């Protein structure tokens, strides 16, 4: 059996990748994908602990996360499309209306 910390290390790498992606990339779709990556790294942790502890509640949680992520993806992509229609770009550096 593969020890649990292997899963945790992979999950951590995935999460860090996601965070760095969110912070550094300019394309809204890629940022979006990075967020999904972070969510999935969490899912991986859940599943790993679930198997390790022999408790199914972790796996049930994963379903909830996936359902929310699906809903979030639908809304998020719709926003990106609306943004693109308005400004002909998905580069978030050009979408800085929050400025003073």
């Amino acid at each position, binding site marked *: 059996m593969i020890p649990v910390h292997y899963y945790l290390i992979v999950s951590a790498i995935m999460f860090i990748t996601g*965070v760095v992606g*969110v*912070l*550094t990339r300019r394309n809204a779709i890629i940022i979006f994908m990075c967020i999904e990556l972070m969510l999935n790294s969490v899912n991986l942790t859940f599943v790993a602990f679930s198997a390790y502890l022999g408790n199914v509640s972790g796996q049930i949680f994963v379903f909830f996360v996936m359902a929310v992520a699906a809903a979030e993806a639908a809304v998020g992509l719709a926003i990106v499309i609306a943004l693109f229609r308005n400004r002909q770009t998905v580069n*978030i*550096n050009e*979408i*800085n*209306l*929050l*400025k*003073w």
Partner: protein
Amino acid sequence: MYEYVGLIVLFPLIGLLINGLLGRKIKSEVLVGTIGSAAVGLSFIVAAAIFVDMLGAAADDRSHVVTLFTWLAAGSFKVSAAYQVDQLSILMTLVVTGVGFLIHVYSIGYMHGDRGFWRFFTYLNLFIFAMLNLVLADNYVLMFLGWEGVGLCSYLLIGFWYDKKFPGVSITWTGDAANKAFYVNRIGDFAFMIGMFLIFKEFGTLTYYEVMDQAEAVAVGDGTMFWITLLLFIGATGKSAQIPLFIWLPDAMAGPTPVSALIHAATMVTAGVYMVARNAALYALAPDTMMIVAIVGAVTAIMAASIGIAQNDIKKVLAYSTVSQLGFMFLALGVGAFTAAIFHLMTHAFFKACLFLGSGSVIHALHEEQDIRRMGGLKRIMPRTYWTFLISSFAIAGFPPLSGFFSKDEILWKAFADASPILWGIGAIAAFMTAFYMFRMVTLTFLGEARWESGKHPHESPASMTIPLIVLAFLAIFGGFVGVPAVLGGGNAIHQWLHPVYFQAEQIMRLPEHHNHALEYLLMGISVAIALGGFLLGRNMYLKDPEADRKLMKLGVLYRVLANKYYIDEAYDGAVVKPLVKSSETLLYRVFDVGIIDGIVNGLGRLATATSSMLRTVQTGIIQNYAAVLVLGIVLVLGLIILI
């Protein structure tokens, strides 16, 4: 009967509310005028009923306090809306409502056709209301309410014709004259208030009889008493137009003539005399103040009388005459002859109101002409105005047996006997000048050839104006008989009547009784001779030559000084007004207001802007920066949790 004193004050209030709220809607001038006059007339009837009731009561049962409600209460300090009905206040009330009623009736004719007719009667009723509060109040605070109220009405009525020009030193419009009256009175009122505070500090109460009771324990010449009485007297110099604050009264003639008669001759300007008389017991404790009062009164009397000689505006002459007569009253107060002061106040109200209303009648007939050099020959055209004016002139000049003779002579006699022959001398010279300028005016206005511009058709005034004149003329003749002195076989009824009010003051002063009848007769004879001399000189000089002023002009500088009112307006303007305006403009406005106050406020604003403009760069609008800060924060918090 005295419980009904509230009604006296209530009627003018009702009249003022009706005319003030509905006057604009009421189209009929007669109705507005009737409401205004009836309000005062009813007050007079109630006051007269109380007076009759009081006559029937025993001498020591004539003073009552009627409390309506508690006005202010703070700890031990309590002020009630309470009226003190006694011999002095009822006398004042009768004069105010009686003369006030006549002047209201006169105004119906005089103000006919004025677009502010209802406004005029509203102000007049407000004035009567305030004046009655002033004379009836049983404490200083309510008196001060009335005191300020009459000042307000004076302001409103001086500037009544606010779009009319009025010439004067630093004055262009009637409104400027109104402002001047208001400002000058503020100075006096300030002193009055400090005096009031001092009384409270000293006695812990502001009710007259409580103050007077406690004053019995104070020694004569007490330092605090000196300051209290002096400050109150400064208040009186403002209201009653004495040196140094008399300058507003001549300019107050900018108002309609009935106002000059009611406010600036008969009633309001005597408020200071009444106030000092009301506080006689306190003044008796401060002989130094009494001396100041007497000297100020005497100097004002002679100074104003001398200015009156060289004036050509009929109302200005009367205005300076009023200042001069008020000086006589203060002279009387200063020598301790309080009853004589009140007596003269009363007779003066009669004849001066009559004179002012008569001058109004003349001005009315000549279409707003006020220069006596352009009058003359009105005797035949306006007989009623002429005769009433003449009678009042004799009264003010002091011809026996008219009212002015008794009151003025008593003042001069008391000044001689109880103070010093010098004060008597000043008063006597002022009396001579009074007779002279009065008959100069009578002669120039009514006698000789007509000198008014052709095209004017003067006419006698309507009955609503002449009837008050006739009534006042009768009062000017017979009003003096209430104070016929003992040497002439009279009982001096007014002295007996007021005696209980001044009992305390007289106890303190202990003036000697005078039995030197020969001296009194002699002085009386001199008074009559003086009046006669002034009359003959004034009449003959100007009857022969209406331009006899040229003879006076030979006095050169002296005449110019008189004609220009001793340059006092100019001196005050240069010494007080201009520097004040100048320093306000430069120091207060440019340096303090713009520089310091605005500087601080704008500086705070600029500080906020500057710091914000630095801080706002944090808000880049780039979402990733916010996210980075968020992540950094999480890492920091997590790191802390793990490490600790």
